[in-house]
C-alpha cells in the first residue's frame, strides 16, 4: 500500500515537472537558449495566483485562465525586447540575460510579496480525498497529473498534427533553414518562448496549492527541469514526458528506499545518461 502512495506521489511531481520542462525543452531545442528565467516565470505564476485567489476570488480556474495569459505576454515582451537584441552576440549573452532576469524577478517577488511562504488554498472537490483500494489519497495530486496529461496531449496534437507543429519541429532541427524557406522564424521564436513561459506560469498556478508559494520554489524546480531536458533529449516532447516520469518516480521512491541518497539520484541518472547517450534518451544523435 505504501508503494502505491509513493507511486502516486511520484506521478504528481512528474506532472508538475513535465509542465515546467515541456516549455523549456522547446525553447532550448529551438532557440538554443538555456533559459534560467524559466523557473522564475513559474514562481511568478504561483505568486500571481496567490494574489488572485486570496484577494480577488477563491477560484483556482480563474487563476488558471489569467496567469498563463499574463505570463504569455511577459514572455513575448522578454523575448522580443531583451533576448532578440542580444541574439547575434551569441548563446553566452542570452544565457546571462536570462540568468540576470531570474534574479530580478526573484528580487521583485520578495520585495512585493515578502520572504515567507504563503499558503494557497483550494476548496471543493480539489480539496477532498478519494479512496482507492483502501487508501485515502488527496484529489489535488491526481488533478496535477491529469492536467499534465491534458497539456501533453494538446502539445503533441499541435506538434504532430498541424502546420505550426511541423514548423516548430523543423526549427528544432535547423532554424536557419526554416528561415530560408520563407518562414518568419523570429516571430515563431517569440511565440514559442511566450508559450513556454505561459506553460511555466500554468505549472506555477498548479504547484501553489500543493507546495505553497515561496521565493525558493523557482530554484527547487529549475534544477530538476534541467535534468529532465538533459535526460529526455533537447527539444523532444516525448523525451520530456518519459524523463519527467522517471525523475518524478525516482525522487519519490528514492525517499522511500534510500533516503540518504534521494537527492543525488536524479543527478546520478543524468550522469549515466550523459555517458551512455549524450544527446539524451530521445535526442537526435547528431546533436
Amino acid at each position: 500500500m505504501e508503494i502505491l502512495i509513493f507511486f502516486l506521489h511520484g506521478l504528481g511531481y512528474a506532472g508538475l515537472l513535465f509542465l515546467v520542462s515541456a516549455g523549456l525543452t522547446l525553447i532550448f531545442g529551438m532557440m538554443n537558449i538555456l533559459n534560467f528565467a524559466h523557473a522564475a516565470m513559474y514562481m511568478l505564476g504561483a505568486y500571481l495566483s496567490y494574489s488572485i485567489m486570496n484577494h480577488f476570488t477563491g477560484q483556482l480556474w480563474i487563476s488558471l485562465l489569467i496567469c498563463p495569459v499574463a505570463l504569455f505576454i511577459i514572455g513575448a515582451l522578454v523575448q522580443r525586447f531583451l533576448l532578440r537584441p542580444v541574439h547575434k552576440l551569441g548563446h553566452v549573452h542570452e544565457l546571462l540575460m536570462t540568468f540576470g532576469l531570474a534574479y530580478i524577478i526573484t528580487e521583485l517577488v520578495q520585495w512585493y510579496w515578502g520572504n515567507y511562504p504563503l499558503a494557497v488554498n483550494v476548496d471543493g472537490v480539489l480539496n477532498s480525498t478519494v479512496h482507492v483500494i483502501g487508501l485515502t489519497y488527496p484529489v489535488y495530486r491526481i488533478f496535477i497529473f491529469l492536467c499534465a496529461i491534458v497539456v501533453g496531449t494538446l502539445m503533441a496534437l499541435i506538434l504532430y498534427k498541424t502546420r505550426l507543429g511541423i514548423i516548430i519541429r523543423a526549427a528544432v532541427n535547423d532554424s536557419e533553414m526554416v528561415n530560408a524557406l520563407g518562414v518568419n522564424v523570429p516571430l515563431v521564436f517569440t511565440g514559442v518562448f511566450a508559450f513556454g513561459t505561459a506553460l511555466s506560469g500554468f505549472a506555477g498556478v498548479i504547484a501553489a496549492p500543493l507546495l505553497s508559494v515561496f521565493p525558493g520554489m523557482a530554484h527547487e524546480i529549475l534544477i530538476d527541469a534541467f535534468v529532465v531536458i538533459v535526460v529526455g533529449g533537447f527539444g523532444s516532447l516525448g523525451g520530456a514526458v518519459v524523463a519527467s516520469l522517471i525523475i518524478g518516480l525516482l525522487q519519490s521512491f528514492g525517499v522511500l528506499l534510500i533516503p540518504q541518497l534521494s537527492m543525488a539520484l536524479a543527478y546520478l541518472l543524468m550522469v549515466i545518461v550523459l555517458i551512455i547517450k549524450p544527446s539524451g534518451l530521445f535526442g537526435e544523435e547528431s546533436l
Partner: protein
Amino acid sequence: MLEVRDIHSYYGGSHILHGVIMDLKEGELVCLLGRNGVGKSTTLKSIMGIVQPKQGSIRFNDKELIGSAPYQVARLGIGYVPEDRRIFRSLTVHENLLMGIKGRNKDNTGKNSWSIEQVYDLFPNLGKRRNNKGAHLSGGEQQMLTVSRTLMGNPRIILVDEPTEGLAPLVAKDVLDMLATVRKSGVTVLMVEQNFKLAVKVADRFYVMTKGQIVFEGDREALLAAEDVRKKYLEV
C-alpha cells in the same frame, strides 16, 4: 533578373567577399566555380540574406535585397538549397516538403508552380519514401529532397550550394540532371560547384571565383578555351 553589384561580406571578423559582381538572366543555369574557401557559399548566403553584405547592392527584379531577412528574400521568389543538404532529419519526407510550401511566393502561382504530387511523379523514389524520416534517406535522396523542398515555394530562382558534394558519381549525375529538369520547367538556377567536369555538362554560363572576387565570366566554349583560368583557379 538578379544583379549583384560590388558586394563586400564578412564572416565573423574576416573579409570574405571583395566586391563580387554577377548577373543572372531569366531561365539560365549558371555555375559559380572555384576552389574551397574562395567565397562561393558566402556569395549565395549574401544573396539570401543569411550573411548581410556591408557594402554593395543586390537587386532582384529591381528590388533591393540587402537588409531583408532570409524569409523575406524567400518570399520574393528566391529559393535556397544549402550545402550539406540540411533536410529536417526528424520530419518525414512529406513533412519536409510541406515546410517548403509554407513560405510560398504568392505572386508566382502560375506557370512554374509546383505541387507535392508533381514532385512525387518526377522523383518516384521520394514518393515511395514519403513517410520515412529525413534522417533515413540516402545522400542522393536527401539531395533530391532539399531541392524539391525548395521548389515547393515556387521560386523564380534557386541558389544551389554544392549539390554533388559527397555523392557517388552516378548519383551526382542524377542530381545535376534533376537541376537541368528544374531549369527546363522555367526556374533560373545559380549553382555553386567544385566539380568542373560535371558542371560543364549542364550549365550555360560560368563564373570563376578566387579570393572573394570574380575572375572569369563566360559560356561553356569560353571556359573550355580558357586553359589558363582552369589551371590557375580550378584544377588541383
